[in-house]
């Protein structure tokens, strides 16, 4: 049994997670689930960076992961603020309600 992890399996895991997040973004109508699926997609891209960093033995990929982490944190803070405001105005988290923008 090989003791090393094949790199393509790590990248496959990242791709599968990314596609699952994409399916979530495309199918869900609840904006909270859309935001959660976006988190999954960001996390999958971070995983790809970590796999690449491990392949080349450099720390640069981990730095990119840290940047993605920061971006995800800021995005979630703004997104949840928007969700709270939306729930106050429309009393729903259905994104179809927002399809008509009036001022």
């Amino acid at each position: 049994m090989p003791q090393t992890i094949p790199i393509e399996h790590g990248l496959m895991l990242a791709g599968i997670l990314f596609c699952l997040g994409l399916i979530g973004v495309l199918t869900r109508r609840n904006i909270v689930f859309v935001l959660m699926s976006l988190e999954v997609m960001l996390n999958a891209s971070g995983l790809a960076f970590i796999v690449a960093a491990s392949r080349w033995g450099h720390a640069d990929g981990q730095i990119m992961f840290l940047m993605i982490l920061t971006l995800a944190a800021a995005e979630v803070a703004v997104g949840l603020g928007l969700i709270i405001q939306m729930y106050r105005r429309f009393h729903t988290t259905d994104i179809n309600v927002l399809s008509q923008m009036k001022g």
Partner: protein
Amino acid sequence: MIILFYLAAAIAIISTVCMVLQNNIVHGLIYLILSLLAVAIVFFLLGAPFAAVLEAIVYAGAIMVLFLFVMMMLNMGQHSVDQERSWMGGRVFIAPAIMSGLLLAQFLNVLRDYEFELVPTEIGVMQVSSLLFGPYVLAVELASILLLAGLVSAYHLAKK
């Protein structure tokens, strides 16, 4: 070690599928936390202990708890679960699943003739932080400004 990798990968994929198919938001969040922790184990096995710890603390800890707090604040209850159930049907998933499946098939096809054995070399905190405060110090400053902007806008948006 390789068995642990496949185990963690399977847990990550299964819990993400459960999250996408879930009707209850809080249950979906718990599945997402499970998926993130499994990915943290994968990070650890790939020789990135600092990223693994940050994934567990920041992603599974801070960001998901933020989600949970907001869900508790909105207090949507059983009504939203029933609404979700009425929105979710098998039909909804067909077109997006086909498109994403095609994308994934292309990606896997590209990866097929790409064979490298990965020998995980552990890249510790010291190497990462010496890069972080060396050549990447501008990126760190920009990240702090991004977080400040996120803080201010979240405060402004969530205000009554």
